[in-house]
């Protein structure tokens, strides 16, 4: 049954939905019965703007395996991306 267990993450950034871009300050993360995905249970993330009190959200429902794969890819992208941009900054510094 649906548990209402919810992990809340404070975030900074934007998300794009059908109505265009919106600021987001919170990600509500849960693992429960999905609304749309044809899975018994799904990892759901709702990106919302709590501070604005907006009813809008950008939502995903993905399998547990997908979620773990995504977490690994997020960390990998951060690691390689931050390293690349650090090099870029150093290069810029050389010419400044």
């Amino acid at each position, binding site marked *: 049954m649906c548990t*209402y*267990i919810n992990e809340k993450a404070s975030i900074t950034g934007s998300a794009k939905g059908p109505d265009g871009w919106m600021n987001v300050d919170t990600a509500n993360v*849960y693992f429960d019965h999905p*609304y749309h995905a044809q899975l*018994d249970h799904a990892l759901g993330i709702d990106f*919302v703007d709590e501070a604005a009190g907006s009813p809008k959200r950008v939502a995903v429902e993905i399998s547990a395996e997908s979620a773990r794969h995504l977490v690994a890819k997020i960390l990998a992208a951060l690691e390689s991306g931050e390293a690349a941009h650090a090099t870029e900054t150093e290069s810029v510094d050389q010419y400044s």
Partner: protein
Amino acid sequence: MTYEGLSGGEVEFTGFNGDDVNAYQARPAIDGKVPGVVVIHHAPGWDEWCAEVTRKFAHHGYAAIAPNLYSRDGPGAPDDVAARVRAAGGAPDNQVVGDVAGAMEWLRGQSNASGKVGVIGFCSGGRQTYLVACLVKGLDAAVDCWGGNVVVDDPSLLTERRPIAPVDYTNQLTCPVLGLFGNDDTNPNPDHVNRLEEVLKDHGKTYEFHRYDGAGHAFMSWYRRHYRVDQAIDAWDKVLDFYGRNLKTA
């Protein structure tokens, strides 16, 4: 006996704390008195499935009402409203009890009400069904469809909004209960169902439990991959038989 002529639509009734609560209602278009059913929606919200269930009961001779337990958190698409309710920790138990009691009174206040009222709920609504069957006086029959966390193993699941496991109210249960469960469900799992049955037995309560092999959670939801047609057909037959015996007889 079934009724092809129906009337239905959205209504408002007075719920918990005197709040106006919207609801979907459907009833057979006949002159005689009919019993009522309160339909408690599942956690994903007051959605199309909930309206379909409400119309199904009307088709079988009941005035049915499905209160929008998230009415204070709308407006919006059911899934978006449900997401807001989840983020807030779910609908509080005392609010649900007040809203279902209000829906029951609304049914009894209709001119063609026979006076008998049952309740049915799915998923979290199954849990809420057990809760209201214990706490709302005047219900005549309750159908718990795979309600999880009626028996609570993990104390962290007891929150300010849901402070007490419904099983702990069993001594206050005053109406017969029909329970429908899939043996492949993980919440409630077969052990939860067995332990709930033991408590009902210990308290001498009237109940009927049916456990289905090859079925998991929400096996009656036709729009999900885990729909199980044979088990769902049998379960609907059991619901209508149970209500027929408890709501349509004098």
